[in-house]
């Protein structure tokens, strides 16, 4: 039947290609870079900085390359730069004062992310801190949960 045609099985090719690529690249890389030195923290941070620098350069290069390679229209029409609004003339201002109802989320976020900042140092040394640390953090989390429950009771997350 016409709706059930068979002409090529490409899943076979797909599987072969992916497997081949991984194996080839992997074995080459693991033999080439088989040495490393134990880093001091300073070295590690500098390395991370160097890495970020490279990523910035690469990101910048792409844009600069695009600037040179791009095509330009011979005539610029004012319509071209008009913000897209489904093909209609944009109505009213875009950046107005309005009510996205997301500020509750922001408040929640502040609540929990600050908490996360406090918890991370503890998380590393949880075993050394022992039961005392557990009680401290537990009470902290308890207070947090009370706040969370209060927010829920106030229906802070139902903005419809």
């Amino acid at each position, binding site marked *: 039947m016409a709706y059930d*045609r*068979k002409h090529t099985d*490409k899943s076979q090719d797909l599987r072969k290609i992916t497997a081949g690529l991984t194996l080839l690249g992997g074995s080459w890389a693991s033999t080439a870079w088989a040495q490393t030195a134990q880093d001091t923290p300073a070295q590690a941070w500098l390395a991370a900085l160097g890495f970020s620098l490279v990523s910035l350069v690469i990101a910048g290069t792409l844009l600069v390359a695009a600037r040179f390679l791009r095509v330009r229209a011979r005539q610029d029409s004012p319509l071209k730069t008009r913000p897209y609004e489904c093909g209609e003339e944009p109505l009213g201002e875009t950046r107005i004062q309005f009510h996205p109802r997301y500020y509750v989320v922001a408040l929640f976020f502040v609540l929990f992310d600050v908490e996360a900042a406090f918890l991370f140092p503890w998380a590393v040394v949880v075993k050394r801190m022992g039961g005392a640390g557990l009680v401290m953090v537990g009470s902290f989390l308890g207070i947090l949960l009370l706040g969370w429950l209060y927010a829920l009771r106030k229906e802070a997350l139902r903005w419809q």
Partner: protein
Amino acid sequence: MGYLTDSLRALGTTLRNMRRPATTIPFPQQIREREERFRTSFALLHDENGEELCVACLACERICPSEVIKMKVAPKRESPFSGKRRGYLEDFTLDLTACIYCELCVQVCPTDAIVMTRVPEVPGFDREDLVLTMDKLYANEHAKPLTWATASKLNEMQEPPKVAKVEPAKTEPAKTEPAKSAPAKTEPAAAEPAKPAAVAEAVAQEAP
């Protein structure tokens, strides 16, 4: 949570579908098999002697809902093959850019002269390429496979079965009493389904 189980079920569905072969047909390399009646472009035909079938009766030009057919009628002259006086085309244009492929021109043709082809590809880089002139239409007769439908076949198919005859499309010949198709009798006598040639004459007489 229902979300998790439902999502897993949906993931199973897509996994199952991954095993099915692709239904895509990579078009230029591979052309889909078309049905016998598949209709697209047009062709004008010759009869077995090599004479043009079209008698320039203007029936197709008149029936065309989007008015894409333009015909120029040559003066009547005697046919070199049969010796009868008949009409001839001087020019014929079919503008595919506005054609809606309704097949009415095929149906009204008294001599089965115009038919449709089964090949939809009418490639071209110009709008001109989409305008089928008489030369192109006559070239299509052999260049492209033709569809099943011609005027006489269409008319035969639509005719109420007065006599029990084998219709091409039936799984079983209509051996049952034809009285079942009662509506056929209520039909007024205006356009009694006649033989193609008779209709041709009738239409040709009406033409100016």
